[in-house]
């Protein structure tokens, strides 16, 4: 019992990690897209638990809110909107699948052998980062004059959200801004590829009724807006 209690994080890691891996396998293997999406949700929640074990509560909360909350709902919306009940029953294993599994296992072995033997810079880089990036001003006694108080910077401990905020909005401010440009480009791309347009050429060749319909649609829209 004592062994389990003292190794609680390890035990949780093994149990939750197994569930996460199994669930992510099921995401790919389920034939019903809704089931796949639900298993993806389970995977996200398990990963959130793993973050908690690593003392990254803020990331865990974001994981639940953004991934499990926002993105999963979007996935389910899309799945239900296009109304795919079952994927067509194809053969699960083709020659590609077997080759893919072979390559995957080989790469996993390579990664496992190489990566775990590496000597890493810092066993707990997060903890160190927290101490150096998050500081607060405190009043302390002046070293020589006991009646005087001086303001001093002191490292603060264990403030996840603050540490992330500091890293993101101070140290990594510029890459963060570029990331916003990146998202803007993604949005432009989606619109450019997705939009249906009447181009000049189509306007020249399009039959009159189509142009009239476009006009009417616009009039109706204007009317609705006016009311």
């Amino acid at each position, binding site marked *: 019992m004592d062994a389990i209690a003292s190794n609680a994080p390890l035990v949780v890691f093994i149990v939750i990690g197994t569930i996460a891996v199994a669930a992510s396998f099921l995401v790919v293997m389920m034939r019903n897209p809704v089931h796949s999406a639900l298993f993806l949700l389970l995977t996200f929640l398990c990963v959130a638990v793993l973050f908690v074990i690593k003392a990254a509560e803020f990331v865990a909360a974001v994981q639940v809110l953004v991934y499990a909350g926002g993105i999963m709902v979007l996935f389910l919306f899309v799945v239900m909107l296009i109304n795919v009940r079952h994927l067509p029953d194809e053969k699960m294993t083709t020659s590609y699948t077997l080759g893919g599994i072979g390559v995957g296992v080989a790469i996993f072995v390579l*990664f496992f052998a*190489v*990566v775990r*033997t*590496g*000597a*890493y*810079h*810092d066993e707990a*880089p997060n903890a160190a980062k927290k101490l150096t990036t998050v500081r607060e001003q405190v009043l302390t006694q002046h070293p020589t004059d006991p009646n005087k108080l001086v303001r001093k910077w002191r490292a603060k401990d264990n403030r996840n959200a603050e540490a992330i905020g500091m890293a993101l909005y*101070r*140290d*990594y*401010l*510029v*890459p963060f801004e*570029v*990331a916003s*440009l*990146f998202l*803007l*480009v*993604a949005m*432009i*791309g989606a619109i*450019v*590829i997705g939009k249906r*347009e*009447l*181009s*000049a*050429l*189509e*306007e*020249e060749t399009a039959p009159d009724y189509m*142009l009239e319909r*476009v*006009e009417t*649609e*616009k009039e109706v829209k204007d009317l609705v807006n006016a009311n």
Partner: protein
Amino acid sequence: MTWGDTIYLLPEIVISIGACLLLIAPVMRRGGGVVRASGAPSGGGARTAKWTMLAILVLTAVAVIASSGLVADVAQTKTFASMFALDSFAIFFKLLFIATMAMLVLLSDDYLAASRYSAWEYYSLLSFALCGMMFMVSGVHLAAIYIGLELLSLSSYILAGYFKNELKSTEAAMKYFVLGTVSSAILLYGISLIYGVTGTLNLMRIADAMSTLVTNDALMFGIMLLGAGLCFKIAAAPFHVWTPDVYEGAPTPITAFLSTASKSAAFAIFARIFYVGMHHFRLDWQVVLAIIAALSMIIGNLAAITQDNIKRMLAYSSIGHAGYVLLGIISVSEMGLYGVLVYSVVYVFATLGIWATVLMLSKHEYAGEQVSDFEGLHRRAPLWAFAMIIFLLSLGGIPPTAGFIGKYFLFYAAVGAGFGWLAIVAVLMSAVSMFFYFRIVMAMYLRDGDGQAEVVSSGGLKLVAAICLVVTLLFGILPGPLVEQAKISGGWVAKRVAANNAQR
């Protein structure tokens, strides 16, 4: 960081604002701008978009030149947590990118006007790509370099599929997107391993941390994955399979963009990362990159021989050129770095010239792409046929052209670094490349075509071809200014290399 530091990012800020303006402008022009009921020809819009884009590029160039007054040695500045270096290396490439982009705008102009696709979003995406490239070459921090690279890549994926009603273009975009994201993931995994071992993402600090290490499996693996990701971006041999399909399917001006600006940006960060960050372990990665370089040169040049589509042929040829540039990176010497800088310029101008000639033959989306379309070109357009020969000679590296100067530096550097065998492979493969370049020359001069492909040379195309011709010949005959500029621009990177070589 203070507000004053933003002046270091002035060019990037100008181009991002410009890109957003290009998106807003068409909406402002016609009230609402959603439905265009009665036909204002799209050509008018495309022309306005072109001039807007050129104006933005001029402003960006002014901003780059203005900010070049702030260049500090190594730019060991504490700006933005030491993420961006405003050094002469970055300025050199930024100006090259802007010049390339301006010529691409001239190349795209008629092509877009003839198509049914909006020019505004096209130029806006090109501006975002330019913004990504400028961030990349300024980055001295792997996170900054990576995010710039991704901005460039995402814009490129969309642009490759910009002709969304063409099956070829969509296929190109899909292949590029899937393979590109996988390679980005590999690159990112490499970066994360390097971070795990060295504890930093800043290239200078990575170099310091590495100099204390003897050997480390995880670090080696990280460098390998990083190299693999970068080799995908420059289209070096085992990671080249996407290149011919994407180059063939993308709209021709975008193929020109991918093979010039995008590629030289990847060369720049390849050189920056491996020269500044990874030089301590160079004995380990030099051999791997040497094999990749040899493979690129052999596969690229041999496969190009059998191609009949000129876009595919140039795609394979560009794989070979990635191999040549790798020679400069492998050699880890000042000479090699100057070679990379000089070759980037030389290669960009020669390739753009060829694309200008190809575009003259392509009246609409995918015409004029076969080698047979060049038949009898010397009758129809003698001047452009002659210009084409100069560009092909430059790519082949024959003396009176600038290509020779670039190759001279790269091969000399490879021999100096003890990779004589690689230099021999490079010379042999240059000879092979002359074989398929001369297939085009033969088609132009020795065969009389039936003259199907009409030559449509607009002012823009002529201007681009003329600029490229002048630059290619000028730097071939008088290489002095270019080499001097490369020496100044390569300055602090080269100094670090020299200091490190002295230490050993």
